[in-house]
């Protein structure tokens, strides 16, 4: 047993209202740069729908993930090492930018500077690839809320697996939202596909990252990832992906998408897993057995043998303790959380609690009591269409685990109605789904009350060894950034690397509290709060006034 820690996320789909706040804040934080205009590390899809990029789940077409060979070994679906190298000059499985969408902006200047005319000036959409006028015809969430789905829905790879009659029924039957980030898999096929060895899984927290200095732009990771969550920056020629907001995670802050989630549906925490058994679990024969195989390699953080193994593996005490308090571990224990597409055999580590709302909607829509356990159970048994769809998403088509998860959610709904309305604790409801009333109430607290510190249990990284690192470059010194570094002589953003990590956080924190400027002679507006004026912001006014060293503005005490 080799115990490793993995930072994971679970999303409670019942709570997702499809507001895209996570996508927008993520984009503002990470991909508001040239070259990644079309990139959404976090996107929210309406299901049923084709997703982003269009139809990414069709692995016959895109060749992502792993397949099991007849001899029981795992192989990359789009071919092994030699096959990859032979296709390096032109990757046949690479999605073109139009499979995502052509990014655009608007000619806003026209609104201000248009000459006087009879008609109101219009800001035309301009392509960010060519600069020409363009007709907007697709985007990252073009079929949002099933908009236009009658035309595109037949391209949903999940629906094509189901029968045609189901397809016709679908729009009436149900709809839900699926927010997606990188899965930070235990067996990442993007890492395995990278010819340069630039992609790696961090030993400490399992976050999958791209070393920007080692990436050579061979593009195999983009096609290797079955979730299409590695993107090609078309200006810098490097792969980029969701970083799990590691600079925030390292200092104990939740990811931007989690922090800003309006529905509070995201949970963050550690799980411990047995790294020795990952490939064994990923190569079980039956696709439907993959879920259980993955559950089996997740280790109980309370088990003394596991704790011993974690210590032997160099996992610090506060991390073991965080793994014990982890909401991820708890939700996996309740067996309400399920992985997305386990059949890709990458062992994804962003899991989902399937939505009960389609079932409740049908029950209440037919005039029945949507909080009655027996009615709900009966409806779950009867509503094969949505359940089958969820099973294709989360359990490789096996309806039993989806059933079990939804039954527990239904039981919780019904049991808690008893507690809060009738003041009755009906143990029979809990027992019907193999739980106790206390367990149901704990689960309710985690899912419904969802306190901040219970949703996010994030131990800080141990940076004791990194404190000596000095600030090497301005972190804002990128193209279009306030530092205005911009394109070097060799293309976009060439030049020495910018450290972006927990060190920056500490440097900034130090700077905020330091008595003197960290970079003498330079104006630092980053920490200027708008009050007073920053040193050096304005040129000296010459003879009339002798400037005293700038009076720093009053800083908010809570920092």
């Amino acid at each position, binding site marked *: 047993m080799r115990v490793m820690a993995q930072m994971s996320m679970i999303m409670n789909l019942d709570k997702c209202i499809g507001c895209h706040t996570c996508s927008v804040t993520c984009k503002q934080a990470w991909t508001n740069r040239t070259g990644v205009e079309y990139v959404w590390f976090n996107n929210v899809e309406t299901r049923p729908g084709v997703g982003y990029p269009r139809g990414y789940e069709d692995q016959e077409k895109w060749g992502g993930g792993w397949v099991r060979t007849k001899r029981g070994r795992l192989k990359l679906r789009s071919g092994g*090492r030699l096959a*990859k*190298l032979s296709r390096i*000059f*032109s*990757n046949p499985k*690479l*999605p*073109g*930018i139009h499979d995502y969408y052509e990014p655009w902006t608007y000619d806003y200047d026209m609104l201000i500077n248009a000459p006087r005319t009879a008609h109101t000036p219009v800001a035309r959409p301009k392509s960010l*690839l060519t*600069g*020409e006028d363009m007709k907007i015809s697709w985007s990252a969430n073009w079929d949002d809320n099933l908009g236009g789905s009658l035309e595109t829905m037949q391209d949903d790879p999940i629906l094509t697996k189901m029968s045609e009659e189901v397809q016709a029924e679908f729009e009436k039957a149900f709809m839900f939202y699926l927010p997606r980030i990188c899965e930070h898999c235990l067996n990442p096929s993007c890492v*395995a596909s*990278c010819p*340069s*060895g630039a*992609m*790696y*899984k*961090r*030993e*400490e*927290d399992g976050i999958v990252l791209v070393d*920007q*200095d080692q*990436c*050579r*732009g*061979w*593009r195999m990771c983009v096609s290797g990832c079955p979730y299409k969550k590695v993107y*090609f920056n*078309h*200006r*810098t*020629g*490097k792969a980029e992906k969701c970083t799990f907001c590691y600079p925030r995670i*390292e*200092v*104990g802050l939740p990811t931007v998408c989690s922090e800003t989630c309006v529905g509070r549906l995201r949970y963050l925490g550690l799980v411990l897993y047995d790294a020795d058994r990952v490939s064994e679990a990923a190569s079980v024969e039956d696709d439907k057995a993959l879920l259980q195989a993955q559950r089996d390699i997740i280790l109980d953080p309370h088990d003394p043998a596991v704790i011993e193994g974690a210590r032997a593996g*160099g996992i*610090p005490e506060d991390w073991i303790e965080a793994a014990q308090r982890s909401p991820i571990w708890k939700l996996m224990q309740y067996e309400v959380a399920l992985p997305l597409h386990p059949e890709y055999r990458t062992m994804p580590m962003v899991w989902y609690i399937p939505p009960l709302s389609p079932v409740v909607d049908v029950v209440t829509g037919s005039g029945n009591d949507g909080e009655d356990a027996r009615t709900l159970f009966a409806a779950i048994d009867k509503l094969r269409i949505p359940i089958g769809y969820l099973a294709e998403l989360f359990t490789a088509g096996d309806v039993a685990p989806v059933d079990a998860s939804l039954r527990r959610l239904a039981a919780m709904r019904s049991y808690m109605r008893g507690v809060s309305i009738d003041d009755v604790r009906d143990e029979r409801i809990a027992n019907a789904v193999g739980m106790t009333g206390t367990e149901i109430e704990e689960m309710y607290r985690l899912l419904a009350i969802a306190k901040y510190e219970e949703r996010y249990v994030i131990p*800080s990284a*141990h940076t*004791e*060894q*990194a*404190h*000596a*690192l000095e600030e090497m470059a301005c972190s804002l010194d990128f193209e279009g950034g306030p530092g205005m570094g911009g394109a*070097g*002589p*060799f*293309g976009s953003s*060439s*030049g*020495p690397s910018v450290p972006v990590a927990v060190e920056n*956080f*500490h440097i900034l*924190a130090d700077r905020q509290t330091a008595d003197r400027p960290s970079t003498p002679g330079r104006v630092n507006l980053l920490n200027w709060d708008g009050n007073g004026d920053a040193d050096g912001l304005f040129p000296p006014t010459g003879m009339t006034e002798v400037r005293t060293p700038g009076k720093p503005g009053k800083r908010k005490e809570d920092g």
Partner: protein
Amino acid sequence: MTALQIILWVAVPYAAISVFIVGHIWRYRYDKFGWTTRSSQTYENRLLRWGSPMFHLGILMVIAGHAVGLLIPREWLYAVGVNEEIYHFGATTLGSFAAALTLAGLAILIYRRRTVGPVFLATTVMDKVMYVFLAAALGFGTAATVVYQVFGGGFHYRETISPWIRSILIFQPDVTLMEGVPLLFQLHVLSAWALFALWPFTRLVHVFSAPIGYLFRPYIVYRSRDANREPAPRAADGTRCSSPTRSDCAACRAQLRVTNRTGTVR
């Protein structure tokens, strides 16, 4: 031996080689981030799907052919049974095929670069300069092959250019070898040196990133976040701190306090 000859056949080669080597070291140290193929496949794949493999496979054959023709003394090849006729026939047919493949690929790629809007917009000045010298080196080389090797009587470059190259490489340049070399070959050689001098400052650096290591490494790569960082602070007793923290070490305790404080900033 005139001054011009010395400049062309001694100074230029050594200058180009120096710039090539020092330039690569400098570029790698200064600009690891810019060291990439800068692929434009996401913009356009219909032309690239043909042009890029054609060009790359062709140029790999060209490089292999040059290695055999320039670096291996012909006496060695005689010794393994490759006589002048076999060599000439092989070099001319394979070389012409490789040149045709490369030039056709390059033509497709340049056409694509000029006509596909996003690709043209993503083309840097260095790309354009590089294309000129790359096309020149390939064009002169192909022209020399066609004029002298295919239709002419055959120019014996293995008596002149090849030993001259080797004399450069062993630091005993022999300028006289280049006397009487036809103009097309001279132009080919000079444009190639220019290309070598430009090389480190163009996207051509990706040649040195050919991912051979991929064939031998394990599929899944793990790295520690501390791998590239400063070594651990020294404790008061002079020993390096072991991970993660030592409660008996004042330096570690102080650092832990900092971490805890900043870790709770909201």
